[in-house]
């Protein structure tokens, strides 16, 4: 078994032991979904679609971003408590600790997303996506999950204390609200609308929405993939630099 696999197993156990992480990552997006669909959604004008069909792609992204703070916290805890020194003295391969966190985060996100989509189906979500479209959805979700995981690991490494590490991911939680996740961007006020149109989560959500409705748009998809690759690259390089500096 490789060091990365051993670390992944460790991170996975940690997740199971930490009810807050599980709640934040899996249950909270579902709570949000129920709230938007049953309480607020009726008041939103999203055009000619059912609100649940409109909102699910955005909630899928939220399921990813809500799970991130646990990762930033876990990475920061590893770095600030003595355990990282123990791993170093044991000659654990350099990236193994980080790989473990990234893969554990992605797995947790996938569980959360599956739960969100499952509940969405229960309350009336009826996408018209083909099998190929679904494959696209999985691809986009995996890509953004991978990219944000590395970015979060980097933020966890950069944080001086575990408290600030937990806070560092707040922007990633807020971004979906300022995107087309809940309501279409063109219904927003000036300024916010431009922000929503040009921030990374909007093209990603629009790509998911297109795939799920069976009408993917190439423009959005290209922008989405470009953002994911960009975020992932920045996160990866940042994380590796911070890691070598800290240990």
């Amino acid at each position, binding site marked *: 078994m490789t060091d990365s696999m051993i670390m992944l197993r460790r991170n996975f156990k940690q997740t199971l032991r930490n009810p807050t992480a599980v709640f934040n990552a899996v249950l909270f997006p579902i709570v949000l979904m129920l709230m938007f669909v049953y309480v607020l959604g009726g008041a939103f004008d999203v055009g000619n679609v059912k609100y649940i069909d409109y909102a699910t792609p955005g909630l899928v992204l939220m399921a990813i971003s809500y799970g991130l703070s646990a990762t930033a916290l876990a990475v920061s805890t590893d770095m600030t*408590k003595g355990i990282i020194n*123990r791993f170093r003295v*044991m000659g654990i391969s350099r990236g193994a600790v980080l790989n473990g966190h990234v893969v554990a985060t992605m797995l947790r996100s996938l569980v959360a997303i599956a739960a969100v989509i499952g509940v969405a189906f229960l309350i009336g979500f009826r996408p018209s996506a083909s099998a190929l479209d679904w494959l696209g959805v999985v691809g986009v979700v995996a890509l953004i999950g991978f990219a944000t995981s590395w970015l979060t690991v980097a933020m966890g490494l950069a944080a001086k204390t575990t408290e600030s590490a937990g806070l560092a991911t707040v922007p990633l939680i807020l971004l979906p609200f300022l995107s087309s996740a809940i309501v279409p961007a063109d219904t927003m006020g000036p300024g916010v609308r431009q922000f929503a149109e040009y921030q990374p989560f909007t093209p990603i959500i629009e790509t998911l929405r297109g795939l799920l409705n069976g009408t993917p748009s190439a423009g959005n998809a290209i922008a989405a993939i470009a953002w994911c690759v960009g975020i992932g690259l920045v996160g990866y390089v940042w994380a590796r630099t911070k890691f070598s500096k800290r240990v």
Partner: protein
Amino acid sequence: MRTSAIAVSGLRKAYGDKVVLDGVDLDVRTGTVFSLLGPNGAGKTTTVNVLTTLMKADGGTARVAGHDVATETRAVREVIGVTGQFAAVDELLTGQENLQLMADLKRVGAGEGKRVVAELLARFDLTESAQKLVSTYSGGMRRKLDLAMTLVGNPRIIFLDEPTTGLDPRSRRTMWTIIRELVADGVTIFLTTQYLEEADQLADRIAVLDQGRVVAQGTPDELKRQIPGSHVRFRFADVPELDAAARVFAESTRDDETLTLRVPSDGGTKSVRALLEKLDEYSIDAEEFSVHTPDLDDVFLSLTGHASAEVPVT
């Protein structure tokens, strides 16, 4: 022939213009306990970090088990175990899972790993709490688990950085017992401590570190001979009483200003009783008496000419 487990010569390290290690020379024989004694900020942890490959020195050489710590990092890491100042345990795992993690990372093998983990849990008296999350452990239990984790894979040279700082007296005794058992198995131990008593109890050799320099080195007995012994201090009401007492105790030292007399004594009940009886015999009354045993402060005062608490920040 190689009898040095750790050989350090001219080790230097500075952070910016703050010199932390200023030419440290050490030699630790295989199978012995070596204690680096010094106050906070003396450079103990920095020394451990350099010797355990966690930090690069600016100058000098250090060999652990014959391997250069700077160039043969991997070989050094294979033979050492380190228990740092802060328990390096995973709080979200149970005690058993922490040990199993170490066994996995050291590739001990599934069956053998289980056996090693169970053995260590029993040895450190942690079997009962093995299935509990470490976040519920007391400070003493964490330290024990930390040391147990270090022992997975049978390292031949173990570094312990202030292993008992912050522990209650009972946990400290337990730790001492465990350390003695390790040495009995032939393990070499490099121990840092702020407590003279701890170094005295455990170490074959002690080096006193002060402001990044070794100011004294030797066996505990050799060191203690260099520092003032324990003594009983009497305080008297007036000078005539002090005069009388000073005549009775020939080898005492008097301080007229505070009206006190220092009489060398091991501080045991027998010798203290003898002193008191002697005072009684000559009808001398002391206002107050106290027993003093040398501590780290005395060591520092006598070896460096300044008290440990007054170590200036350079």
